[in-house]
């Protein structure tokens, strides 16, 4: 069972829910796909970490073979190539690594080399296998690192919890792509509802089953409750706002390990998700 935990809005509690679900499940894998700002590792504090770099490909131009035909420059739809003083030149942060210039060169003058964009760290916390994707600072695109994190974590048959980035753009789509079920963590506020609606649309387009967890609830927020009813999406549980949980979270402590009611809550949530997935 592969569960993606997402929210649209940031700060609703994706990492809180993902980390605790992973700990509640036996022998789970936790994959942190929020590669721009990964946080799960702060709670899980994994040990025996192995790190591997993630590369994208950049073109190299062999000036001996280059005939100056400029087919590479003309082909590149991203304008990542310029032709200066008889030589092609690539601008790395614009290049999408599509390999087009390599293909169109009639003289075989274009090869590719690996350019590091991030790393994948793989460690363990008890019986939880912890995979963290980290994007290098200054790199614009999270997607290659997310892909590598999923490739590292999704080997084998373990139950997996995928902690997704905020928003509903490309990084989220990539993170959700391999999942069987999506847990949408919603915050009972106007902003939370607005962004939840965007991810529900996305999840529906991807034809994924989903359920909602309402987090940090003080009083029921009727527009959110109404939206859940109308859209027919099951509310899996409602987690009350609690200063205890806020403080545990601030100190990067795992609620499941320190708070009895959280243990009960996440055991129940896990059972409900398993029941939903079986349907």
């Amino acid at each position, binding site marked *: 069972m592969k569960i993606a935990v997402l929210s649209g809005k940031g700060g609703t509690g994706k990492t809180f829910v993902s980390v605790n679900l992973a700990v509640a499940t036996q022998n789970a894998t936790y994959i942190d796909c929020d590669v721009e700002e990964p946080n799960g590792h702060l709670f899980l504090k994994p040990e025996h970490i192995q790190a591997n770099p993630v590369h994208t490909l950049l073109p190299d131009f062999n000036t001996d073979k280059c005939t100056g035909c400029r087919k590479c420059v003309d*082909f590149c739809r991203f304008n990542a190539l310029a032709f200066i003083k008889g030589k092609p030149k690539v601008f790395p942060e614009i290049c999408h690594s599509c390999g087009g210039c390599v293909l169109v060169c009639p003289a075989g003058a274009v090869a590719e080399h690996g350019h590091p964009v991030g790393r994948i760290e793989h460690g363990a916390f008890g019986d939880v296998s912890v995979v963290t994707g980290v994007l290098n600072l200054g790199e614009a695109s999270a997607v290659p690192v997310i892909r590598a994190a999923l490739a590292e974590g999704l080997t084998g048959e373990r139950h997996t919890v995928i902690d997704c980035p905020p928003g509903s753009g490309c990084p989220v789509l990539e993170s959700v792509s391999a999942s069987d079920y999506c847990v949408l963590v919603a915050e009972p506020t*106007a902003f939370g509802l607005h*962004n939840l609606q965007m991810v529900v649309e996305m999840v529906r387009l991807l034809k994924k089953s989903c359920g909602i967890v309402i987090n940090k609830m003080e009083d029921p927020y009727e527009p959110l409750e109404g939206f859940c009813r109308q859209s027919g999406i099951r509310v899996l549980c409602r987690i009350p706002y609690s200063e205890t949980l806020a403080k545990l979270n601030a100190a990067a402590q795992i609620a499941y390990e320190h708070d009895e009611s959280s243990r009960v809550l996440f055991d129940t949530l896990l059972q409900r998700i398993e029941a939903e997935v079986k349907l």
Partner: protein
Amino acid sequence: MKKLLILSGKGGTGKTTTAAAFIGFAKAEAFADCDVDAPNLHLVVQMDTKPEQTTYYGSQKATIQPEKCVGCGLCANTCRFHAIRFEAGRYAVNEYACEGCGVCAYVCPQQAVTLEADIAGIQALYRGKRVFSTATLRMGRGNSGKLVAAVKTALSEAAPDKELAIIDGSPGIGCPVIASISGVDMVLIIAEPSLSGFSDLKRILKTAAILGTRTVVCVNKADVSLENTEAIEQFCEAHGIPFVGRIPYDHQASMAINVGMSLADVPCPARDALQKVYAQTMKQLQGGAA
């Protein structure tokens, strides 16, 4: 025009709430929402004009013409983005994964693949006494950086003589954040006093530094962990980053937002704290090097 950008690194720290409050305090007549992935500012700034809407075209997307396709699969094998799959007896392009590179069109021996214009979002510009520029990116589209740049350009062009522009940014450190930082006079980072928030703060600070932008920091929901708030304040001091204040957790804040009100109009502890943060931020913005 002096441009103040509000960022956070971590999501959910209070960027939009702060932006809305600052707009009220400053009686700002120019503001923008650069969180094109998940824009929220329009929910709290009450504009009384209808916006001008512009379609935003992103990169082109590939389409396979089924009548020409012979099913050789060369496109799918060459696509670096896993954007072409064999489904229901034919090869088809996944519009969410396609990056519009044109390699599939190049390799197809039947010339069955074309690249077409793709609507990637909608830009909205409200023009009146106040100018508000915002946009929404369509599901799963990239090019968020270019749309962010377009939102800022629309604001500068529609309100060139306004003194101050407040820009609500997005979480993270990637493309849309980098695009929003370009050309602003100062960044205010809203930090959260948790270990996650502190970790994310360091990454966004480094990102702003790489781009050479002046940055100031405040902590929201400071009383959730005074220990972490202290640590953040000390970190800023050690690194020469002006710390512009603390805002307490205030239940009334979300109640106000939920009814579309800016905190500038709601008497509460958060507002009082925000006013002080605003004063300090403006002092830094006006007093700083151009």
